[in-house]
């Protein structure tokens, strides 16, 4: 396939398939609860509807309020473009691209939190404070996980690191990254996407004053971020670099599906933890990643 065609295919996967994941999670939750649940494509309908709507802005919002969702969406998509999709590869790969990827997610966080602070709302300030505070531990865990991959493979390019996977520590790394996935995407037990009580939310409360196309950008970006973490998790665990392309692609799709179902099951079976327990949970994720790192270091892979 030509390089341009491959590029379009990758972008189509990231942008087009991402909104499927929240629908799947909701389906799983509904099935566990014995309900029928909303259609799997619900988020697509929502996005289309929001994109056509008008906008209500806070009287306090500056022009930067529009920059926030736009930059956050772009940063998440750019981070996703750097992450290889198994045999489909990434848009660009260079030594140290992994650091750029992590910092693009930080850029998205800065932009989202900036927009939240624009409105002068105490709720949104609360949400932004929680988001940036919990992200400190999540980022430490991700860096520890990436270091585990780097030490295991001896490489600094995402494609090489993920092709090699985490080796003997893969299970530890997978568990750690799964917790990070839940935290970064504000799923139960860190945050409840279904709750509408402003005082207890993290991500949802930051976007209370976003409406219409702005909210569509936020929701789509969140879906891409979920898919991003699921793909990262699956590739960090499975050594796909050694498999034939077809098998690897099937394994990637199956893995992402499994992670999605896992998120749904967690959401259906667990309650949200109290806020003061969140750091504890994230620290455990960090410790899991550090153990994976130690296994990679002392296990003498390569």
């Amino acid at each position, binding site marked *: 396939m030509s390089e341009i065609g491959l590029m379009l295919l990758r972008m189509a996967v990231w942008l087009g398939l991402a909104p499927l994941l929240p629908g799947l999670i909701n389906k799983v939750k509904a099935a566990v609860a014995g309900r029928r649940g909303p259609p799997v494509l619900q988020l697509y309908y929502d996005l289309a509807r929001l994109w056509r709507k008008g*906008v209500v802005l806070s009287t306090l919002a500056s022009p930067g309020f*529009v920059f926030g969702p736009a930059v956050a969406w772009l*940063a998440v998509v750019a981070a996703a473009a750097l992450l290889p999709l198994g045999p489909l590869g990434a848009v660009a790969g260079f030594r140290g*691209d992994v650091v750029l990827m992590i910092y693009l997610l930080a850029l998205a966080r800065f932009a989202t939190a900036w927009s939240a602070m624009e409105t002068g709302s105490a709720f949104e300030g609360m949400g932004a404070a929680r988001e940036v505070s919990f992200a400190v531990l999540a980022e430490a865990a991700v860096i520890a996980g990436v270091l585990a991959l780097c030490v295991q493979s001896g490489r600094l390019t995402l494609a090489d690191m993920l092709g090699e996977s985490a080796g003997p520590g893969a299970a530890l790394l997978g568990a750690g990254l799964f917790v990070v996935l839940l935290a970064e995407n504000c799923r139960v037990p860190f945050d409840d996407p279904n709750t509408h009580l402003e005082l207890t939310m993290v991500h949802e409360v930051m976007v209370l004053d976003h409406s219409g196309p702005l909210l569509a950008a936020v929701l789509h970006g969140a879906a891409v971020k979920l898919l991003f973490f699921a793909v990262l998790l699956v590739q960090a665990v499975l050594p796909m670099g050694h498999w034939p392309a077809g098998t690897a692609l099937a394994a990637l799709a199956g893995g992402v599906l499994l992670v999605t179902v896992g998120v749904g099951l967690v959401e259906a079976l667990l309650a949200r933890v109290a806020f003061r327990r969140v750091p504890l949970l994230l620290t455990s994720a960090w410790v899991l990643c550090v153990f994976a790192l130690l296994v990679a270091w002392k296990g003498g892979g390569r």
Partner: protein
Amino acid sequence: MVAGLALGGLGLLGGALAARHPRGWLAATLTGQGALGLTALAVLGGGGSWADPGAGAWSSPCGHLRLDVLSAFFLLLVAGVGGAATVYAREYWSEREHPVSAVAGRVWWNLFLAAMGLVLLAAHGIVLLVGWELFALSGYFLITLNRTPRAVRSAGWLYLAASHAGTLCLFGFFAALAARTGSWALGPLHDRPELAPLFWLALLGFGLKAGLFPLHVWLPSAHANAPSHVSAMLSGVALKMGIYGLVRFSGWLPTPPAAGWVVAGLGGVSAVLGVAFALGQHDLKRLLAYHSVENIGIILMGLGFGLLAAAHGPAGWGPLALAGGLLHVWNHGLFKALLFLGAGSVLHATGTREMSRLGGLWTRMPWTTALFALGAAAISGLPPLNGFVSEWLVYLGLFDAAAARGPAAALAIPTAILLAITGALALACFVKVCGVVFLGAARTPAAERAHECGPAMRGAMLALAAACVAIGLGAAGLWPVLARVVAAWNPAWPPGETPASLKALTAAHVVVALAAVAAAAGLARKLRRAGVRRAVTWDCGYAAPSPRMQYTAASFAGILTEWFAWILHPHRHEEKPEGVLPRRARWSVHTPETVLEEVIEPVGRGFLWAAAQVRKLQHGRVQAYVLYLLLGVAALAVLALWSWTG
């Protein structure tokens, strides 16, 4: 070269003489700095080094100057940031607002710049010490330009005391060096391994100036209380003189084997604790000052891994980490000066540095808001700006060191994790600053009456912001310069090709920047078409929202300061609502200068107490002095008898 340096010196001198005439001062000072900057640029571009004719003979009594790539690297920072701050100072510290100190401020300013230039050019111990002392003293007079408030005087005193403690170490360092080499001349001395322990003295002396973590005690109050253009210069440039000293003498002299470990370890500690203390601050400038501690930490991480790589044989990661640290010297100089100048505009417009009294400044100060936001994104290390480039280089060095699994990996892994934590904490802190100071609604009438700063102040900030963006989008173009400086530090690492990864990163930065602008423009266009209505912020149905209900700086940082309470030791004052009809309740939290108040001051008090005890011996009664004499003679007699019999 000589002409450029001479013109630079003359310009600064002429500016000092013309201090009464602001325009003449501005023109002369800018000419001088332009000449210095161009000279530095020529050396950096050409890679050659210039030494004054007398420097061939290292024994001539005085006047030894030398400009090599490393000095030029720092000299360009002095000239560049100094130039922007000079333009800013013209408007910020004008006769109209500061009739008493405006002229004196200009004289000390030029002396300050010239002294830093002298420090960078010195290749002779005494010259360097003279320059260092001039630099420290003129800094003191600049900090205390407006010495009416008590806080300014005590900040100045603390700065002076800390500076002189550092100078004392440097006196010891240069004297010991001169005693062992037999000359005050400075230059590469790699074949004298017995000089290695002197590194610790240099680390103490230069570290005090650089403000690395336990030695930073003077820094927050000096930066917070100095006039803002001086704060920008202190933080952006003056701290880097300490870094220059460390880089210079770790390159010229042999270093002890533990040097790399200690420097990198101190870097990690400074980075995380600096930003943790910053989170606890509610004074805008004090907060920025603590971020200097953080960024000095990042620079030291790079230098530390450079030292480790130099000590543990050939390693590709050494030059990367060192280049990252050096680039961070420039980057921090640029964005921190920008942030301090922005803080100065806020202070100028509202009269307060207290963040919880500000808010909603963007309506009145759009330029300052936009430029401050850019600086905030840059200091948080976000792509595609300059802060990320240098942090990325340091990361690359750390990851390579970790992947190599050598002895340095045991330090590289925790350092990389600390760097990640630092980045995330800095982001949290700057979201807090931007959100509380510039966004939302004005919390006080002072914030409501704010006004945008004038064209000179705005222009200075614009120039610094443009430099931040330019380094972010053109990083690959800087590699030859960095490689040459690294090669000057360690001749065993010759400058090579620009790494392909850095070129790719630069390209990615350009793409991300363009796409971000396009995405924002597209979304804004979409909104205009869709139609925008304005309404009050969602307030959960509350009937009477007021600006005081916005989230404050302390509450925003509450979660994080709670995690660091073990070192921050925050003071909480609480008056709970009591009774059936509670009349008042209050709650406030304040982060003290923990190291100063809980370590340095008790030690100082103990010292004073001991001195007071000794002082009791001297009271002016002759009889007692005769008794001391007799006792002394008796003691000597006993001692003599003892040694005679024994």
